[in-house]
């Protein structure tokens, strides 16, 4: 890959690496898995970056890859090689969720997201990024009506959870 592409990738990642953090923390309850998943997402993006054709926003492309890798990874069983030994040289160093300064709302939001199923997690993540229903539908490969139905249910659940805390 040329130096220009490396530079472009680095710039784009610098701007959007928060996406990786959010997806990893929403899909992976285990800290060792998170590191591994973040690495897998990042390397998949790097390897397939040549195919990125600017037809969609970089963040949308990134979300597609991150979600696809996370959903596939999430399903891996416990047979995965020992989780305690990570390679010495890591490509990515992801902070622990508790180390990142965040409001109580964000903490509660993460708790809420982790309770959802794989598809609903993806929907709420994209919704929170202010993506339109069409973009969410295209990213997930489902109909807009399905997105709307699911989203209204998720919002209802979210409201209940937040209202419970407030009361």
């Amino acid at each position, binding site marked *: 890959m040329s130096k220009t592409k490396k530079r472009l990738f680095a710039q784009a990642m610098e701007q959007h690496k928060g996406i990786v953090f*959010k997806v990893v923390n929403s899909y992976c309850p285990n800290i060792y898995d998170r590191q591994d998943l973040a690495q897998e997402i990042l390397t998949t993006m790097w390897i397939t970056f040549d195919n990125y054709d600017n037809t969609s926003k970089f963040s949308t492309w990134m979300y597609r*890859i991150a979600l*696809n890798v996370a959903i596939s990874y999430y*399903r891996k069983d416990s047979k995965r090689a020992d989780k305690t030994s990570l390679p010495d040289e890591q490509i990515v160093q992801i902070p622990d969720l508790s180390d990142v*300064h965040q409001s109580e709302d964000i903490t509660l939001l993460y708790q809420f997201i982790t309770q959802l199923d794989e598809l609903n997690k993806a929907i709420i993540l994209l919704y929170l990024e202010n993506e339109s229903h069409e973009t969410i539908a295209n990213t997930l490969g489902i109909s807009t009506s399905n997105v709307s139905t699911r989203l209204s249910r998720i919002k209802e659940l979210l409201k209940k959870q937040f209202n419970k805390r407030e009361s």
Partner: protein
Amino acid sequence: MNLDNLKNHWQHHHSACGSEFAINEAILWQVKINKQMTHLNQMKWARIFESCVFLLIIFLLGQYIADNLSVSASFISASILIIFAIVGFAGNIGQIVLISKVDYANPVSQLQKDMFRVCSHKLQLTKLLLMSAPFYFAYVFIGFDVLLGVDLFKHLTLKMICFYSFFSVFLFFVMAVLLTKLDYKNISVVWVKNIINFVLGPRLVSLAQFVNKIDSNER
């Protein structure tokens, strides 16, 4: 709770978490393949190997047919088995093409379906084997002829031929029902789930459930 405020918080949280997220670019630039792609490559090589095996079977059966060009039990048996071998070979080529087309930038539902098709290859092979079950006597006839040089059909009485034919027809219907049901779309049926779990493992059951859930919501 105000959803717009929550969205704003979330988007600001984006830059906060990104700033503490370190990427070792020097190592990243050297990466040519990762775990998932290694796994896909291994599957591709396995399918290439299987294709070679199917090709060898097709060649051997073809040779056998050429040597027995007359309407006999051995000729018909070999003709039936060569059809299954060709189907198996074509399926494997399809798998190789599918693996090459796996693209993580595809919509989630499409990639997950592709992954299920790629990973459920063992189930397809099992189905092919089950499909050939009603023709089980084709294996027996060829086995006797090749290994012992005996044309078994000539030694069967009419009663036995009737019994085996009836059993084959019975098997045909059982397999037809079994094979139409054995699909991820029926993953909610307990025995289908159990068979998929037995042949492919729990990971693929979960993938089948995910894909099926998306499909059923779209119907």
